[in-house]
């Protein structure tokens, strides 16, 4: 554990920045592919935070959760891409604002 160690604050800052990037992407982008990518970014941001926290407390839990997030992300991408194809077929576009059938 000697050598250069990155302070936890820095990692959390990075995670927050990544999360906000993802969030902004989610809120701003209309293309469904970009929305999915933004989601991935957010997931990974939280994963970074977990890993850093695990390292900080010397526990394996953080990495376990990271594995879980990896799995969830993979599943999510699988479902998400399926949806993307469906949306493309239905609406002939990838613009999520066109898929507003649920409006009240």
């Amino acid at each position, binding site marked *: 554990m000697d050598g250069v160690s990155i302070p936890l604050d820095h990692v959390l800052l990075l995670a927050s920045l990544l999360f906000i990037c993802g969030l902004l992407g*989610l809120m701003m982008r209309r293309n469904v592919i970009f929305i999915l990518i933004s989601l991935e970014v957010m997931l990974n941001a939280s994963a970074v935070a977990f890993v850093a926290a695990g390292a900080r407390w010397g526990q394996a839990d953080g990495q376990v959760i990271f594995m879980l997030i990896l799995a969830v992300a993979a599943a999510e991408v699988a479902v998400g891409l399926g949806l993307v194809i469906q949306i493309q077929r239905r609406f002939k576009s990838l613009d999520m*604002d066109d898929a507003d059938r*649920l*409006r*009240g």
Partner: protein
Amino acid sequence: MLKLLPLIPLFPLISSVLLMVTVGKMPKRLVAILGAGSVGLSAVTTLLVGLAFMESGQPHHQVLWTWMQVGAFSPDIAFYLDGLTLVMMSVITGVGFLIHLFSTEFMEEDASYSRYFAYLNMFVFAMLVLVMADNLLLLYLGWEGVGVCSYLLVGFWYQNPDNGLAARKAFVVTRVGDTAMALGLFLLFTELGTLDIQPMAAAANSQWQVGDTLPVLACLLLLGGAVGKSAQLPLHTWLPDAMAGPTPVSALIHAATMVTAGVYLIARTHELFLLAPPAMLAVALVGLITSLMAASTALVQHDIKRILAYSTISQIGYMFLALGVGAWTAGIFHLVTHAFFKALLFLAAGAVIHCLHHEHNIFKMGGLRTRLPVVFWSFLIGSAALAALPLTSGFFSKDMILLQAYELPTFGPWLWAGGLLGALLTAIYSFRLVFVVFFGKTQMEPDKQPGSRMAVPLSLLCVLSLVGGFFALPLVPLESVFPVASDHHPSHLIEGISIAIPLIGLAIAYFIYLSGQLNIDGLVNSAPGQMLKKFWFSGWAMDWLYDRLWVRPYKGLAYILRGEWVDVIYNSIVKVCQQLFVGLSHTQTGRLRWYATSMVFGVIVVLALLLGVI
């Protein structure tokens, strides 16, 4: 023998139920035998019971079962037989039987023959219960029962909506009175703790003083019921319209029996009325004013049955007058003689209508004297009795009433004079009827003659109307029921005037309607004469008044409210909710980014709240 008492109403009840259950499947002969025979059986039983009662002379009280019992409230199904009851029962079963017999021929061609007798028998049952009841609640059962039968029979020919209207009017107007009477029962029960008539009278005498407020109130409420059923002011308007029913019905229900139920009620509860002099005076005044009003109206009518209807109202007015001045026996005596001669008149009128293609207008008749001799003599005798010509039955009873009214201190002579005026009018209109219908030119030829089943009842009633005055009074055991009237007799002059007045009326009618020596056309055609005639013709415009006062406002109210305005409140709650939904549903854009963004802001706000930033 007295134990047979419950059988008397039972016979017509059984017959009625049988006729109802078989719904017209019975052959007509059997219907006639059952319908008239059951009432005949009752009449015979009444005779037997009456003889037994005369022997013992004691009131007979017979409890069948306890109707309902909650604490002190325990009216029985029980009958009470005394002189008054016996008189009423004799009239109902005796006259009733004659009218049933008459009906078997009169209604022969009607498709609903058995329905007719079912109702008519049911009526006799209810009427018997009314007069035999030992308590006011059972009396009320009979009271409403006769009302329903009257409704059913007035509206017997239901295909014509006018008949239905007349029937409903009869029921609803009397119901107004009945409701007053029901309130009277509530009051009597609450104050006296019983509805059994004899204990109630005893309790009233011990609890109340003469002239207290409560007996006056109770009596006025009972009077309300009586004026409704007996078609007195202000609830008389239903009776003339009730003539829409078959004529024998008018004879039985609307002349001889049901309409005199009010008289019976007051006579039955006379001990209460004696405690309430103001109520007595009200009874007398109602009677007098009604009799004058109805007599004047009868003067100008065209419809033979309407004339008789108004005359019934007027004669019942006399009975009320008698009750009001304390001439109880005279009132009941007049009830009996009136039942004879008015039933006779109605049946005769029915025969005229029957033989004359259902014509009701007297000015389209005429000269029937030679063509329908039996009917003519019946009508003549009936009219003579109605006009109280000397030695007819009506003479004795009416004379008794007028003389006893004269005896009353303070108001007596006035009531007497009013009664005389009524007697004059009565004589005029009854002989107007006779002269117009049976004398003069023949305008319509009768297409048939009354058969034996019509002629026999007519003849029997003729005899009763003529001589009923001689034998009815001594035979009627009323002395034990009512307080004895004073023996003092007014002067011979007063008596002489009373006798002369109907004869003067007869003479006037003769000169106007038969010989034509007295021409009143000028008088009638003058402007005030026309107005008066119109006013009288409409029955003093009471129908018009009630239409404006009650019928139209009520109908209007029902029409305005029919859409259920209370729902406006609930519907506006629904509206507000719907508006809120519409507003909220605008936030549901269907756009993913919008949802994500609002979630983010929501989270930020929540976090800020949790961290205490805001």
